[in-house]
């Protein structure tokens, strides 16, 4: 279980997140809905240790992660697939994926997950020897998700995996996210596409201007008039 308790953080003099409290229950798919600039990316960067916490606490499976560095947080079982993907563009797809296993470096487990990732995204088997930077946006997103999975996480953080992708690819990516979750890996997903993401989620939060404004089970959020007005255009 991931628990954020009254977390505040920001850049320079400006606080971006204000007293954010969320929980992501083990094995569940939790979605964070919010417009551009609402603080989704900052929230995830705070969890994975890329940004320091100013106040509050982050706890995962009973361990405090407030001052942990990103490499320690991956080891603790939280893999962050960031906005912008941050792949190793000049390395082959296969090398990108295999470097994902760096936190555990267990040969047998690496091969096992590698096969799973290629089953999940068969196109990556074809592109295995190509530089990751030469792939299309959707394929790069698959490499990024695959690389995060290679660390054998118990919680996968996905920051707007559908951003900038063609609608048909968005459906594919979200379908694979649901598949990953079905295997028992907890997922924390940020999205602007409320309908598609709430359909696969267990629980959701709505974030606006760095504050959590709504928190509920996914089904209830889908029926919530505020969510419908703001995100579903109903």
């Amino acid at each position, binding site marked *: 279980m991931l628990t954020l308790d009254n977390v505040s953080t920001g850049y320079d003099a400006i606080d971006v997140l204000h007293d954010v409290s969320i929980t992501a229950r083990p094995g569940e798919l939790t979605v964070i809905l919010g417009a551009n600039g609402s603080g989704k990316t900052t929230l995830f960067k705070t969890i994975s240790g890329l940004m320091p916490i100013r106040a509050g606490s982050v706890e995962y499976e009973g361990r405090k992660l407030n001052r942990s560095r990103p490499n320690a947080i991956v080891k603790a079982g939280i893999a962050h*697939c960031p906005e912008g993907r*941050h792949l190793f*563009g000049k390395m082959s797809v296969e090398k990108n994926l295999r470097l994902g296993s760096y936190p555990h470096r267990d040969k047998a487990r690496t091969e096992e997950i590698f096969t799973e990732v290629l089953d999940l995204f068969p196109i990556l088997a074809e592109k295995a020897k190509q530089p990751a930077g030469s792939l299309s946006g959707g394929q790069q997103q698959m490499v990024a998700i695959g690389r995060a999975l290679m660390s054998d996480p118990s919680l996968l953080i996905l920051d707007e995996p559908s951003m900038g992708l063609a609608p048909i690819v968005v459906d594919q990516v979200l379908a694979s996210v649901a598949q990953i979750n079905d295997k028992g890996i907890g997922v924390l997903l940020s999205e602007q596409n409320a309908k598609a993401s709430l359909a696969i989620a267990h629980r959701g939060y709505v974030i606006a201007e760095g504050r959590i404004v709504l928190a509920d089970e996914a089904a209830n959020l889908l029926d919530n008039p505020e969510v419908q007005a703001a995100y579903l255009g109903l």
Partner: protein
Amino acid sequence: MTLFIQQLFNGLALGGVYCLAAIGLTLVFGVLRIPNLAHGALYMLGAYLTYFFLTTIGVPYIAAIGIAAIMLFVVGVGLERLVFHPLRNSPHTHHMIAAVGAMFFFQALAQAIWGADFRRMDTPITGELRILGAEISAQRIVIIVVAVIVLALLAWFIKRSIHGQTIEAIEQDRVGASLVGINPSMVSMLTLGLSALLATIAAGLVAPINLLSPTMGDALNLKVFAIIILGGLGSLPGAIVGGFALAIAETMTATYISSGVGEAVAFIVLVAVLAIKPTGLFTKAVQR
């Protein structure tokens, strides 16, 4: 023809030395994003330590280089921890000033221990080999062979081993590397240590041909910076090709035109590259 072959081998030997020195510098640039102006001083320190173990202690030649190289690895790690790491969030000029400071420190240290006079490190490997009618000194053959072996090991380490791959990962995407669990601090230490180790191997190999002095790193510094700009900052193949190309151009112009022009050729090439293709010959386009 005999003269040409002789000079070609001289060029290859010098090229091996340049490559080993330049690769470390280009790796450090790729990982820490700073031009390590103290690189030549590390090379100089490596030469003196090799000299110390060989001449003063009496360790066999290759072992002396090996011990000195390991010691310089530690010095490189120390330099990263004590100088560059504390400055990691400051503007780039601070790194350069600190690197110059480190360079003066190492030069003063060498001068305090070994004096300011030139020292000769006697060639432990004597004799000549006759190749295609040309007399090639055995020392130069040793330089070429050792350089090729070290370069091959390094290529294997960086491309195939998981710890070596972390260097390339950091070079290509720092955030991505952190998120796959790589500790950028560890990689910075490893890279600076490795660069000092390679510079020491280069220095130990060439020391029997050149003289030792506390400022011997200055000339090398200029050359290796020219090489990595020529090959493209951060590019490994660029540093290798650039190193050999520059060394051969240097020996050939020195032989067929004049030795003065030979020394200048590095900078003529450098100015030409900066004017025509400032990103270097081996970088496809400006990254990011």
